[in-house]
């Protein structure tokens, strides 16, 4: 019985192991030959060193965020007519243009906007909007509205094609205990992380290193096992390797960030900032804020969510700036859909369609991009989308990550002028 190999051994001997398939961790079983692209630094960069690749932080607002009360069309009477109880009063809107302004809870984001570090993309959606939370969330995660492609996530495919030698922590999800579909690909290059301390096998008192080693050994796959057992062993091997990575980083975590609010969303962002500054090789972080399904008594709930979102992102950006890391990080917010234009009887709103997205970072082209969707020309009571979300993804992939988007998105979507080119990233036509 051979001992578990170290990750470095895997990477140096990896290609011979791939042939054996069954005994390699999932993230190596489909490894192509190493390609020297800026994304694929697992072979070239020591995990302890400071990397300088671009980092994407996706913020998922689960439940369907009310876009109209987030970026408020305060100059439009139709908005106030449709929402007698829920409309944000004109005097509280934080105006950013002659017709639009932010929800008052987003004061910190308004400051980022004024500072030229926040872009708003208006009316983002997709054709034939689906008003089911799950189907619509699946569409955003797979970037496949027709549902005809493989059930993998757009970020999972990014890791598969651009990052063949990245380790299992190329993606880190902090959304709860489940791995978001967006990060699932053909190979396990993303892990779910709730706390770095818990992310390890803890031996019994007196078990020590001996028991940890035994755990590594019993988790080795055995050829010919049932598919479910096989899936478990491969996941466990990825976990063991990722755990080594995380613990190396966790050993360097310092609680030096500025003050963050105490809610779970902000604390996740604080951990992201810590991991980045500790040199984690992670390229994409996925953070969730839930509770946006405001069918009833929306006002107070949505106000609090806006405040949470604003305060958390504000603390995060300030922290990164202070650490000199803000140039490396782009934040992108999205929700599975907006809400219906008209409020319902429960002082809430029902499932809708198009909604705005935020991009936050040093490289954004600041301002409001795209006109506000019409409040009168509606599709079954909902705003009509005017910007396909896959164009936003394509822009992030090409102009921020510096990689082609066509293969990942199974099609060519025009990029938008919402990001300034990063140094060294060619602009695609």
């Amino acid at each position: 019985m051979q001992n578990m190999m170290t990750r470095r051994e895997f990477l140096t001997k990896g290609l011979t192991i791939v042939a054996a398939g069954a005994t390699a961790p999932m993230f190596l079983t489909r490894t192509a030959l190493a390609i020297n692209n800026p994304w694929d630094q697992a072979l070239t960069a020591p995990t302890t060193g400071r990397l300088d690749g671009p980092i994407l932080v996706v913020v998922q607002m689960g439940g369907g965020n009310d876009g109209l009360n987030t970026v408020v069309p305060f100059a439009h009477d139709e908005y106030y007519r449709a929402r007698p109880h829920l409309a944000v009063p004109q005097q509280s809107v934080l105006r950013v243009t002659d017709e639009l302004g932010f929800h008052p809870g987003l004061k910190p984001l308004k400051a980022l906007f004024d500072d030229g570090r926040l872009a708003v993309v208006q009316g983002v959606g997709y054709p034939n909007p689906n008003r089911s939370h799950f189907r619509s969330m699946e569409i955003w995660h797979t970037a496949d509205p027709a549902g005809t492609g493989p059930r993998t996530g757009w970020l999972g495919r990014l890791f598969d094609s651009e990052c063949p030698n990245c380790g299992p922590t190329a993606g880190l999800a902090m959304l709860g205990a489940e791995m978001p579909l967006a990060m699932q690909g053909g190979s396990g290059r993303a892990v779910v992380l709730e706390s770095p301390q818990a992310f390890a096998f803890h031996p019994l008192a007196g078990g020590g290193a001996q028991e940890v080693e035994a755990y590594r050994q019993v988790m080795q796959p055995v050829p010919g096992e049932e598919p479910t057992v096989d899936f478990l062993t491969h996941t466990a091997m990825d976990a063991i390797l990722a755990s080594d990575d995380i613990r190396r980083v966790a050993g360097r975590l310092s609680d030096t960030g500025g003050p963050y609010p105490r809610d779970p969303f902000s604390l996740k962002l604080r951990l992201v900032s810590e991991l980045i500054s500790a040199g984690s090789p992670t390229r994409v972080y996925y953070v969730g804020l839930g509770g946006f399904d405001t069918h009833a008594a929306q006002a107070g709930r949505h106000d609090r969510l806006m405040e949470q979102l604003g305060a958390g992102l504000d603390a995060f950006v300030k922290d990164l700036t202070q650490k000199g890391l803000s140039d490396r990080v782009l934040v992108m917010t999205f929700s599975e859909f907006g809400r219906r234009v008209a409020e319902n009887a429960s002082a809430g709103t029902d499932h809708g369609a198009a909604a705005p997205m935020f991009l936050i970072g040093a490289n954004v082209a600041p301002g409001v991009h795209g006109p506000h969707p019409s409040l009168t020309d509606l599709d079954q009571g909902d705003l009509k989308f005017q910007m396909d979300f896959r164009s936003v993804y394509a822009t992030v992939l090409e102009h921020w990550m510096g990689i082609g988007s066509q293969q990942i998105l199974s099609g060519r979507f025009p990029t938008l002028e919402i990001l300034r080119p990063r140094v060294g990233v060619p602009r695609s036509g």
Partner: protein
Amino acid sequence: MPSGLEPFSPSAQDRWDVGKTGHLLRRAGFGPLPSEIAQAVQVGPDRAVDALFAFPSDAPSPPSFGEIRQSEARVDEMIAEFIRTKTKPNDNPQLRAAYEEANRAHGRALVALTSWWFDRMAKTRAPLQEKLTLFWHGHFTTSAGDVHDAIAIYNQNQLFRQFAAGNFARLLDGVARDSAMLRYLNNDANRKGHPNENWARELMELFTMGIGHYTEADILESARAWTGWTLREYRTFEDRRNFALKPALHDDGPKTFLGQSGNLDGTDVMRIILANPATPRWIAGKLAKFFVSPTPDPDLVEAMARQLTASGYEIAPVLRAMFRSQAFYRPEVVHANIKSPVEFVVGAVRHLGIADPDWPRLGFLAGDAGQRLFYPPTVKGWDGGQAWINAATVFSRANLAGALLSGKFGTPDITALSSIETMAAQLLQRPIASSRKTVVARAIKNIGREAGIHLMMSLPEYQVS
């Protein structure tokens, strides 16, 4: 006998043995013990399956809600006083304090209720009843995060237990009138002229038909039909736990729902949904996914759906046929499911003989591993299957087993787990792969018996069901 549900008949080549009964009892319960498995072998498939359906007729006594009643009574009195004197409570600090105390009482009671249910799962003589209660909780979801009312959540839990293997049409009717559900999906606020679509949508998408069998217009028409299915006027806390039909709030105008027109109400909507062929398929598919395999055989699902229709939606007969079927015992189905965190915790407590477990803390740890009772992540419930397992939950399960062994959550009794063979029989209900056996044996010799048990409970074979 329709194809898809042909019964399994034991033969010399294919015996009714511990492999089969272990599989049956794992799926129909929580962490079966070797004695129970041996008993099921002895009585044969018919009696083993029949025994699963011997549900106790008496309702389990609930945890005490005395503290809640007291704190609510104080609020109710104040409200009554405001009503009597026609004063507006505006921001009355005493009222606010009394409200907050009631909220805290509910929080404590929800922890107690979770512990009560866990304990029942671990100790019941009718594990299938609790397994089905858990199934319905994941199907007709309600989160205590939204409905912070321990009594309403308990009432819903009892509804699921009462109809666990009963009639689905009656269960559905009970759910439509259930106060926790009415609040969770806002039908309590769905009234004439201002429909709230939340319940109408999820009723079809998740609870009965599945996506793709109706249009957005059907959802709106259904929402209109459900107007006025609400709660009693809110004067006391208890009013919020009682269903009321309010004609004044009901839109009794003509509607067209799934092709049928008339002055429909909620009862009509349920009748039309239950008559739609998508519904028995959806329910059969969900039952098969939960009990048989993440990718159940379409013939099996189709046969179960036909039987549901033929029996007028009786659940017990279709489950009985499923547990007796060849399809249920196929090799590719055995070990194809993954234990949910709740199953894992309850099974581990049973396997380790922990008589008085610290359920409140174990409940939170099951939550860290992905399943917190009464707090499903979304209205869709828990995805289950491989979604239970990722790099983080692999560790949380192994560490949970270690914490249980260490006596942090109650005193284990592991005298029965004296050798690697007895460990495998009790924990895995199957032989252990030889390469792993060598490692575990070495750990037992060099570190101790507990380390061997810990490793075994960390194995992939212990995570599957």
